[in-house]
């Protein structure tokens, strides 16, 4: 048996998720904030694949496909929004949008 077990992969996924969350809260650049959400997706994907591997169940890998789909859709929409916001205020600062109506 190998020395690398399920919990090692889960630990890597958890660490990447937490790092992504810290980045999402601390960074103020809209683009970097969305990069950090992609980091969190990565952490979750590693955990899912690890469970899939250690249970010999394809559901984990199939779920990673859906995670990738959602990540792609989110990136497309978020980047479209960022381009729109940048044209309006000419800055990428998330704090520039502090006041919003509605």
């Amino acid at each position: 048996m190998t020395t690398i077990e399920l919990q090692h992969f889960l630990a890597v996924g958890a660490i990447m998720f937490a790092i992504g969350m810290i980045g999402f809260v601390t960074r103020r650049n809209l683009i970097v904030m969305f990069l950090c959400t992609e980091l969190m997706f990565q952490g979750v994907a590693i955990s899912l694949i690890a469970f899939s591997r250690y249970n010999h169940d394809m559901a984990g890998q199939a779920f990673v496909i859906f995670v990738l789909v959602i990540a792609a859709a989110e990136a497309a929409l978020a980047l479209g929004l960022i381009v729109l916001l940048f044209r309006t205020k000419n800055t990428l600062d998330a704090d520039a949008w502090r006041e919003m109506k509605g």
Partner: protein
Amino acid sequence: MAAVPPSTGFFALGSMVFSPAVLASVASVTDERLTAYISPAVVLVLCVVAGIGTIMLLPGKREIAFRRIGGALLGVAGLLFPAMIYRPGGGHLDAAGVYFWIFSAIAIVAAVRVVTHPRPVYSALYFVLTVFASAGLFILMYAEFMAAALVIIYAGAILITYVFVIMLASSASVPEGKPAAAVLGEYDAVSREPFIACCVGFALMGVLLFVIFDRAHDLRPPSPEPTVDLSNPETIQGTAQSVGNYLFTNQMVSLEVAGVILTIAMVGAIVIARRRVMIGAEDAFEPSAEMSPILTPQDDSPASVPVYGTRNPRQKGHPET
């Protein structure tokens, strides 16, 4: 293996940071399984050290040396943690183990750099590194189809889009030798609430790691690999076939919904990001004096152009040379 000797120094640090009551209560939780792996107090202390390092490393109006100290603290915590959970595998060097440590180290270091680098382009490039390292981890888990999909979709499509948007919406390049904060926007150079964010983030990390290693022995060990008859090619199944079989038998509706979501997202992105052309009163098209009026089809006909110097309407008045 109990807590290894390098942790003793951090126990001393932890006893300075935390009251003895907290430490005693934490120490009383330890049972056989936990001490067999890693003590929760060690995880806590390591998370605190890493949190302090991250706070110092995050972009802010501080000296470069200050950030270097933070990076060193984070590196020490990051080296001690694998040293604790490392268990040598019976004398022989395990190839999968070596690759695991390499790939996970690259992935986590690159992830930290994504978060802490002040310039967005470098964040995106470090994220590419994270994606490749995760793909290596996937291959280590025999998920080669997902590894390929990850590299193609993330590094090939999503990250390219990010880099395009960054180039579209970024300022001038930073000259060498100047601090990045002088040229970068304030929103890139100064992070928001690093202390609270690191407290929350590393508390989450500590809880997750604690639970993972607390329940480590309840997790099922990998069941034996299904034997593959290599002489009969019909029976060989890669993960692409397995995932496809699973998706098209168990997750049919979800797959269709995923396709619809992608289509909707594409249409939505185009609708959101298109440039609106206003045709109002101020923007109305007015022909200038120099411009000739738009020709009607009647005017456009060569036979209708007035010809001077000849009476034959089909003959040119002036030679074209």
